[in-house]
């Protein structure tokens, strides 16, 4: 079951850490240096109002698309974009059209109730589904990258259907 009206007790919003995704870095020595850290999650409250939100920023994006507007959800093992998802993605596409210098990364995720490699593949499917729809409604494909996190980055922490439903998601993160 997927729904955008599920209230979360704590809203953990993704803020973007700059991912050095412009080009692949050849890593010579391990442990790796500070750059190239992978995606991290830090909680921010876009409604705090303490600072000015810069237009075209990720905070701006989140504010514009609304709560949960940055993500679409999926049924178990599914990766199709249904009508509800389309509405969400259309709002995202509108914002992206407003700020043509921004790019987006669509993250694909799966819930913990799957095996690791398959979930990486499934997350990739979900990310691509969302990307394909965005492209189909006019967003330039070169502006959108996909990355799968499989089951590595749950957003809801429980081991129940509610939590799993929230974790089966494709999340759009904008990058300047």
């Amino acid at each position, binding site marked *: 079951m997927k729904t955008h009206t599920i209230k979360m007790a704590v809203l953990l919003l993704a803020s973007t850490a700059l991912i050095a995704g412009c080009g692949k870095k050849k890593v010579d020595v391990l442990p790796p240096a500070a750059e190239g850290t992978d*995606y991290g999650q830090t909680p921010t409250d876009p409604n705090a109002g303490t600072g000015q939100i810069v237009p075209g920023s990720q905070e701006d994006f989140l504010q514009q698309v609304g709560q949960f507007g940055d993500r679409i959800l999926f049924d178990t093992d599914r990766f199709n974009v249904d009508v509800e998802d389309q509405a969400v993605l259309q709002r995202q596409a509108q914002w992206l059209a407003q700020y043509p210098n921004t790019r987006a990364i669509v993250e694909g995720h799966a819930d913990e109730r799957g*095996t690791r490699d398959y979930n990486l593949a499934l997350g990739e499917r979900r990310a691509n589904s969302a990307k394909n729809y965005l492209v189909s409604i006019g967003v330039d494909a070169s502006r959108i990258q996909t990355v799968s996190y499989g089951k590595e980055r749950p957003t809801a922490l429980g081991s129940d259907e509610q939590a799993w439903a929230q974790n089966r998601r494709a999340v759009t993160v904008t990058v300047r």
Partner: protein
Amino acid sequence: MSLFALHRKLASFLLLFLGAQAAIAQTPPPPAPASDEPELVEFDTSKTRSIAVPALVAPAPADTPAGNSVALGRQIAEVISSDLRASGVFETQGPNGLRAISLSEVTSPQFDYWKARPVEQLVQGFVRVGGDGNLTVGCYLYDVGFGNETTRLGFNVPPREWRRAAHKCADAIYSRLTGELPFFDSRIAYIAETGPKNKRIKRLAIMDSDGANHRFITNGQSTALTPRFSPNYKSILYLSYVDGNPRIYVYDIDAGRQRLITQSSNPTFAPRWSPDGQTILYSMAVSGNTDVYKISATGSGSPVKLTSSPGIDVGGSFSPDGRQIVFESDRSGSQQIYVMNADGSNQRRISFGSGRYATPEWSPRADLIAFTRIAGDFRVGTMRPDGSGERLLTNSWQDEAPSWAPNGRVIQFFRTAKGSGKTSIWQVDLTGSNERRLPTPVDGSDPAWGPVLP
């Protein structure tokens, strides 16, 4: 006696003899017919075998960089004892609680003393420090019941590798008494986990098969997943998010450097070595569709695409002879197990039980394929390469990703706790017995077992 009486006596004897000869000649030994098959004698095999491992004798105590040889003698016995006990086949005594043995006893055990304890098998040995500073470790296995020696071996190692000498002794003892190939002298690669469920720190780590000599390889700044030792232990294949995307690297352990296995910008995951270490099997997603590929381990040459179904084809494991590959695919609508030739031909499904089947791994013994079965809970099991004889070995909320000990007798997997999501590494005997947790410094997942060290 009259002659006639004598004659009659002789005649009767002859007749008897004739009759007997006829009896023998007329009953040639035929094979025993089924009805004459001996009655069945049944016995049970659940009993563990008792084995005593007193401290190894250090006849000329000397200091080494790894400690005094007397202490090493005790530590080696402890490792031997732990290995044998961990296998689930033996119940061990000592070295704690056992009296010290003299050097002469090493080759001339006091069988009556050990028989009275009682104990069935006895391991005795010695540790010597050579002029070159290396250790010479000798270990002897005795059958107490029969009062004789079963086997003896000697090893010469640098002091810092004393544990390997202990593992080699334990391996020889285990092999001799069970018929199995050895597996104690080997290393395990896995992912060490810390942190909250939604912000896990995952580091590549390696350790001995008993958890000793633990070492972190990555520092956790980037998520590391699904490692595999190369068959020669020189490299580790693994998945890293170090550049923000899932990519497979070959990490050279000695050099401390790594390289990508393919320059493709597509996400790659689920890396595996071929048994000869010459080929790398991996999965790559192109435009959202994941297929199984192989590429030369040296990095030269182009990848070969092995599957092409519109479904997710992922993972994979070579048969020990390198001629077949078992992998998982959801082309039928749900995750199931398939086998194909190493060139991608003749892909056929082998799992037809109830539930979904994932993470297939071919046993180094070639006789079985281990898998994760998903039917509500996640359970680790085995089936024959034709899909028959399915046996489930574990029964927990989420056990997954089995890999094999190098002798194909023990299966290692990781267990996720419901709710907390905390992971731990476990092992279970092929018979389903002796399920035990492998101690790790922090949580652990994705365990992979390397071969027996040369």
